[in-house]
């Protein structure tokens, strides 16, 4: 009680001193989340404008005689004649570790009912990306726990890797699996020397509230929520909130990057983000271009994704990895927004509906997926075993058409087909089941050295599961050696061979 009185007294004494100068305007038109204001002679671009009732707007259109302002929140109380004033501030959000484990909206206000967010640092939502001099090359891996990705399309800390595919192909699932694996690794290696934990930020743009609730449950059950910030701008939120949510998330990620930590941010999804921006631009009467998107929709995504980077020691010594998600229609990657985002990111993971329904899940198309950072972001061990896998799968796909003529092929072709079929089977993985990097190395080593050639294709998954169980229960030292050594030496090679022989003697 006494602190409240002290607060009021300090506020009153602060107000006693001077006259307050403000710059005001009058609302002349309001509708569709946009208000047109007369006056506001000192307004600046992107400045926060205060409406009566505490509503905040952003001045986006500075015209000769009026200001176009987008409203962040419920605009039903705004009417013509309302007096608004400038605040002199750019839109900022609270950042810091106090946000971990929380669900917040665009302005950083809590949505999960767990009380106020403990944070005293504010970062601007719109910020210029780190320049060339401030950056460092990407060479630390982000282990997604999904074998297909870690082996063939490896992601590094500070990279932007696009996840692109039709609806219901498993895009969000890959993102969630990655987050769960980061949380698991954070817990397992907490405090160990040289280990840098990765914090997750999941930005939900235009999604159903039920979807966001489901993702929250999954993360909580997997114990990943304590390392995750969820920024939610659901489908029922205003277009302004959906437009600004990714930038808020990026600001929260930049705090980790500037303070020597690594963060992973997932934008789910940027197609809905572009649609929200299109709505905002059209209501502001900005000229439209292809598919009615405004002319600067490329700049919208490029300035967002360029903020994900790895910075050098002098400029923060951290990194922000981005996994944007884009949804295509009928597999058309040459549409406007997908091509835009593909040209911005450092690679893409392309998910195909056909593969999904054939049972290949994650439905990653090895031919069309690429990571431009590539093996620079892999530990040596994985590079040694997985280096050839992509090529072998490519050959398998080429020859797959001949698979029907089984008996008419030469031995080498048959061997490739057999091996390829087993690799495809091996890369199938259940959701929420990340595999540690050392187990991946062991399993891939086994298949590359022919230990799975005599196993029927439909028993490959069974063998993999049993092998992993065997390794984690009885061969922990071997796994530890693989993880710490980083590369497969001759001794390790021999040890792996002996282990596989021992395993196959117990498993038929």
């Amino acid at each position, binding site marked *: 009680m006494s602190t409240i009185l002290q*607060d*009021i007294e300090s*506020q*009153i004494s602060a*107000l006693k001193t001077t*006259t*307050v*100068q*403000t*710059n*005001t*305007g009058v609302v002349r038109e309001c509708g569709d989340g946009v208000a047109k204001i*007369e*006056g*506001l*002679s*000192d307004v600046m671009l992107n400045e926060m404008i205060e409406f009566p009732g*505490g509503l905040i707007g952003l001045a986006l259109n500075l015209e000769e*005689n009026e200001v176009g302002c987008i409203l962040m929140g419920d605009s039903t109380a705004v009417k013509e004649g309302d007096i608004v*004033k400038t605040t002199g501030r750019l839109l900022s959000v609270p950042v810091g570790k106090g946000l971990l484990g929380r669900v917040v909206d665009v302005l950083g206000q809590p949505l999960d009912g767990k009380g106020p967010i403990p944070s005293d640092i504010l970062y601007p939502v719109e910020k210029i990306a780190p320049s060339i001099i401030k950056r460092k090359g990407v060479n630390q891996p982000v282990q997604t726990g999904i074998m297909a990705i870690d082996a063939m399309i490896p992601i590094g800390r500070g990279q932007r890797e696009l996840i692109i595919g039709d609806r219901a192909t498993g895009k969000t699932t890959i993102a969630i699996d990655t987050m769960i694996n980061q949380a698991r690794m954070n817990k397992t290696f907490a405090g160990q020397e040289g280990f840098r934990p990765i914090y997750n930020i999941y930005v939900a743009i235009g999604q159903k509230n039920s979807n966001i609730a489901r993702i929250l449950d999954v993360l909580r059950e997997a114990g990943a929520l304590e390392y995750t910030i969820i920024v939610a701008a659901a489908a029922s939120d205003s277009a302004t909130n959906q437009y600004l949510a990714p930038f808020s998330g990026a600001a929260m990620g930049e705090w980790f990057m500037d303070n020597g930590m690594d963060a992973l941010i997932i934008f789910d999804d940027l197609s809905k983000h572009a649609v929200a921006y299109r709505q905002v631009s059209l209501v502001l009467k900005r000229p439209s271009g292809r598919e009615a998107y405004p002319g600067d929709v490329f700049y919208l995504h490029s300035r967002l994704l360029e903020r994900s980077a790895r910075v050098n020691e002098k400029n923060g010594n951290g990194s922000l990895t981005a996994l944007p998600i884009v949804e295509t229609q009928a597999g058309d990657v040459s549409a406007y927004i997908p091509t835009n985002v593909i040209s911005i990111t450092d690679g893409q993971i392309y998910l195909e509906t056909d593969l999904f329904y054939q049972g290949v899940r994650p439905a990653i198309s090895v031919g069309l997926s690429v990571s431009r950072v590539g093996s620079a972001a892999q530990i040596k061990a994985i590079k040694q075993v997985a280096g050839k896998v992509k090529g072998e799968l490519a050959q398998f796909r080429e020859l797959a058409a001949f698979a029907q003529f089984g008996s008419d092929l030469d031995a080498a072709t048959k061997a490739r087909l057999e091996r390829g079929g087993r690799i495809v089977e091996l890369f199938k993985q259940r959701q929420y089941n990340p595999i540690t990097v050392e187990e991946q190395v062991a399993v891939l080593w086994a298949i590359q050295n022919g230990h799975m050639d005599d196993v029927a294709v439909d028993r490959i998954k069974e063998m993999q599961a049993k092998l992993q169980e065997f390794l984690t229960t009885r061969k922990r030292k071997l796994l530890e050696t693989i993880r710490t050594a980083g590369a497969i030496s001759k001794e390790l090679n021999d040890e792996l061979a002996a282990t596989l022989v021992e395993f196959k003697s117990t498993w038929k």
Partner: protein
Amino acid sequence: MKVSKDARKLSRSLFRSSFTGGRLDRARVEAVLKVVAARKPRHTLETLKDYERLVRMELARRHALIESATALDPAASESILRDLKSRFGEDITHEIKINPALIGGIRVQLGSDVWDGSINGRLELLRSKL
């Protein structure tokens, strides 16, 4: 009302021609109105309404509104006006009003800038901060 592009263009050019030496000129405004009444261009009503809006905003930019809770001492209002004119130009029009809603103190508005020293203003500030 929705003003068409042509009407907006015309009203803007009429507005620009109503200025002499950077300030709105009454004689020119009257001349513009006479011409529009005589020639009756297409979209006359829209053009005139938009022209009126532009002139209104320009006049408001140079109009000072001095409000106080009780009747202001003429010397005080004189000094405020002198201050405003020396800072923003001699051509400022002014209006002195009594507004009991302010409770106490003075509120001066010139165009978009507001200097609020009234008690009501401080109460509003307190309310928004809490």
